[in-house]
Structures are given as structure tokens and as C-alpha cells.
């Protein structure tokens, strides 16, 4: 019964919270409207996610968010330093291939987004079978180390969260 009203409890919760954030004021009326949205939107869109991702490990998701936030700050400083103090001739930009162990499309999407937001790397393309991701590095002294860091720092955690 509960499963029929809330086919996707996490989405319902997020929608309600985002609604409350948008109106920027928590009143009973807004809460009712937010919960109504949280029920109606997942119900009407349920058909479009036949196999939606499951969060296996919410605690790990929180840890992942913190790690990524911290890395974004570090990435900003690093990239700013490179832009300001490195001569263009000294830049060693390169493409690297990161083989993926992840299989779910959602996990790969999160990983690609994370790669783009974090130190010196932008994700550019997936292999046709989704088994590898092409990453562009702004400045990589050691491309293999960058690849290993992506795998151990982000992919390992995502694997625990989604799979």
C-alpha cells in the first residue's frame, strides 16, 4: 500500500525539500503542497524509470558528497594556480582512458559529473559499450596516477553506493 503511494520514496523526499527550499518558507500550507508534489510527480513519471537506481549505502553517499565537495575546492585552487602561474608551453594536456567497473547508467553519470568538477580533469566520452570513459587532463605529470586516483577515490565509493 505504502509502496503504491510512494513508488520512489527518495524522489518524493527530494521533491518536497526542493519545493520548500524554492518557496523559502516552511508553513503548513507549503508543506502540504510540497508533499502533494512529492506524491504526484513520482506517480506520473514512474513509467519512465523501469529500473531506477537503488541507494545501497546512504552513509557512503554522504561521505562521497563530502569528499567531492572538498575535492572541488582543491580543484579550484589547483586549476587557478595552473592558469595563473604556468606558461602554456609547460602545460602537458593529455587524454586518458579510465576503464569502468561500474555498470549502472546512473552511477556512470555521477562519476562523469564528478570527474568534470574535480582536479584538472573533464570527462569527454564513453566507450560504445559503456566500459570505459575518456578523460581530458589539463595538466598531468603522470596520467596513470590520475587514472588510479579516479578509480580508487570515486569509482570505489560509487560502486558501494549503487551496486
Amino acid at each position, binding site marked *: 500500500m505504502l509502496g503504491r503511494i510512494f513508488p520512489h520514496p527518495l524522489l518524493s523526499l527530494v521533491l518536497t525539500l*526542493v519545493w*520548500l*527550499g*524554492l518557496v*523559502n518558507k516552511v508553513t503548513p500550507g507549503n508543506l502540504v503542497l510540497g508533499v502533494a508534489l512529492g506524491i504526484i510527480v513520482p506517480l506520473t513519471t514512474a513509467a519512465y524509470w523501469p529500473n531506477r537506481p537503488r541507494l545501497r549505502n546512504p552513509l557512503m553517499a554522504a561521505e562521497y558528497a563530502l569528499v567531492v565537495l572538498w575535492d*572541488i*575546492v582543491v*580543484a*579550484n*585552487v589547483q*586549476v*587557478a594556480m595552473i*592558469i*595563473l602561474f604556468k606558461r*602554456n608551453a609547460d*602545460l602537458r*594536456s593529455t*587524454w*586518458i*582512458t579510465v*576503464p569502468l567497473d561500474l555498470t549502472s*547508467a546512473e552511477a*556512470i553519470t555521477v562519476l*562523469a*559529473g*564528478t570527474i*568534470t*568538477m574535480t*582536479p*584538472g580533469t*573533464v*570527462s*569527454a*566520452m*564513453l*566507450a*560504445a*559499450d*559503456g*566500459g*570505459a570513459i*575518456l578523460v*581530458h587532463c*589539463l595538466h598531468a605529470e603522470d596520467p596513470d596516477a590520475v587514472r588510479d586516483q579516479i578509480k580508487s577515490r570515486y569509482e570505489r565509493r560509487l560502486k558501494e553506493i549503487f551496486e
Partner: protein
Amino acid sequence: MDFWAELVIAFFLVVSGIFGFVGSFGLIKLRETMQRLHAPTKATTLGVGGVLIASMLYFLLIEGSFSFHELLITLFLFLTAPIVAHFIAKTFIQANIRPSDVPPTGREHGWSMYDDPPSDRREE
């Protein structure tokens, strides 16, 4: 108390100004499109983030109310920035990069822009 609040807020505004500037400067200074892509996806995140933190602190410390809007802007920014960067990268690759310019996938199938996906899997 007010002085310290203002000092902290001003600090975040200055930080965000610096990073916003560096991000824009990178667009001019770097030479290749793929390199330029790094400047706006990273340096400006902290640029926008600094303004948002300053705004939250202002409402919290000086106006005495809490505003959720900044958190939502952060959320939407983190969702959209990588996607836009990905679009630009894809367009650039499509127009300028040949398969021989990028490293191999190390798998049976090539990169998605040059090779067809295996027929038994849905497209990703």
C-alpha cells in the same frame, strides 16, 4: 559582532571575485578548446560558491533569517555545469578530433562517437 560578520562576508566575496576572474582569464590565456573547458568548469564553481556562501551568511548573521535558495543554486549548478561541459566537449570532438587522436578504449568497442554500441544493450 557586526564587524566580524561583515569581515567574513567580505572575505567570501573577495575570494569569489578572484576565482571568477581567474576562470575568465583562463578562457583567454589557454590555447586549446579542451584546455579552455577546464577554466569555467572549475575555477568558477568556487567563484559562484563564494557569492552564495556570502549571501547565506549575510541573511543568517545580519538579517537573522535563513535562506534555502543558495543551497538550491549550488545543487542546480553542480547538476548543470558538468553536463554543459560535456556538451561542449562532445561538439568539439565531433568537429575536430579524429579517432587516432585519442587513446584506445582498451575494449572490443571503440569510443561512442566513432563506433556503434553493441546491439544487445540499450544506449547509454
